[in-house]
């Protein structure tokens, strides 16, 4: 009887010691988490870079096979869109010439759009819309810098910077909210984009009186100061207009497919 109670006591004390040891280890690991993560990323990144590239190529190959059937429809749709874009280009060229004339008149030098840094994606967090890139503090990157693709499509912003690596919160992340403009022919509508996680974005606070339609382009606005303006976010997929609500909401056809890109650009 005594021996049994002694054993039970021993087990209880052992359990408490294990728990204290576990909490201490977790606490200790979190003090040095930046260093620990940095070391793991350092020896894992060469393998991960190759795996990411292989993933993009393999998925492109299979996507190409599955898209083959719908290629004709897509071609027709692209041709229709092309005609619309050709008209838009002519209009924009006129505006550009006018802009250039004004700049010359006002003596303002035409500078490059952005000062960019190039980086490669290493991995993506399995449970959240966060990616890791191979550039960090040593390359001049800082927290909150905006990240875009080659085609000027919005990716997100830097949330954590290590010496040689950085973490980017994608625009689709649940904690991401930023000002946008819905571009229509000749007019712009201000609204707010809200990440939903799992590569989804919705647009909120679209004034009820504004007319929007499917396919309207959504670009960033510099109102909130998070992103530079005119970076493509996506296109309106569908929208809900209810007379009782003061604002409309819309779902976005995201212009970014993170699994299809290898390289990113950071706006310094």
């Amino acid at each position, binding site marked *: 009887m005594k021996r049994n109670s002694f054993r039970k006591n021993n087990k209880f004390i052992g359990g408490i010691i294990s728990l204290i040891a576990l909490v201490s280890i977790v606490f200790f690991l979190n003090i040095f988490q930046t260093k620990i993560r940095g070391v793991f990323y350092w020896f894992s990144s060469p393998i991960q870079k190759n795996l990411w590239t292989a993933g993009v190529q393999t998925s492109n190959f299979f996507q190409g096979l599955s898209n083959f059937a719908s290629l004709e429809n897509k071609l027709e749709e692209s041709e229709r869109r092309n005609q619309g874009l050709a008209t838009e280009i002519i209009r924009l060229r006129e505006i550009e010439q006018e802009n250039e004339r004004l700049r010359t008149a006002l003596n303002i030098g035409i500078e490059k759009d952005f000062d960019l840094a190039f980086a490669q994606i290493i991995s993506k967090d399995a*449970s959240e819309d966060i990616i890791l890139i191979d550039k960090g503090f040593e390359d001049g990157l800082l927290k909150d810098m905006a990240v875009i693709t080659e085609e000027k499509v919005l990716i997100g912003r830097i949330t954590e910077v290590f010496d040689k690596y950085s973490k980017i919160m994608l625009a689709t992340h649940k904690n991401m909210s930023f000002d946008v403009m819905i571009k229509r022919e000749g007019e712009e509508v201000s609204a707010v984009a809200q990440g939903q996680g799992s590569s989804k974005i919705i647009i909120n606070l679209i004034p009820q009186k504004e007319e929007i339609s499917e396919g309207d382009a959504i670009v960033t606005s510099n109102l909130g100061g998070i992103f530079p303006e005119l970076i493509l976010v996506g296109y309106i997929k569908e929208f809900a207009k209810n007379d009782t609500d003061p604002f409309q909401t819309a779902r976005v056809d995201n212009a970014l497919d993170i699994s299809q890109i290898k390289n990113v650009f950071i706006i310094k």
Partner: protein
Amino acid sequence: MLKKILISTAALYILILMQTSFFLHFTVLRLIPNFAFIFLIIFNIIEDPKERTGIYLAAAGGLLLDVFSTNFIGLNIIIMLFISLSIKFIIKRYVGIPFAEKA
């Protein structure tokens, strides 16, 4: 036992690298299964409940998952340890898997 832990941890590490850099390009309905998690559960189910390799592996796997995620380090360690201990407890108490006992 040490050899078994080292080999299983290496396998888990490769699985996590594959999951964060390769498998995410092949999502179904934008979802991707957590292969490391599945591996750990299966390992703990088929292992003899008296052995402790699964518990050490759960701690190592949790640490690796934490490093490659954005949460604080320790969250996955605690989750994995809890799951591993629970599986062992349930199997020991209520379930008898003959092939597991022989292993």
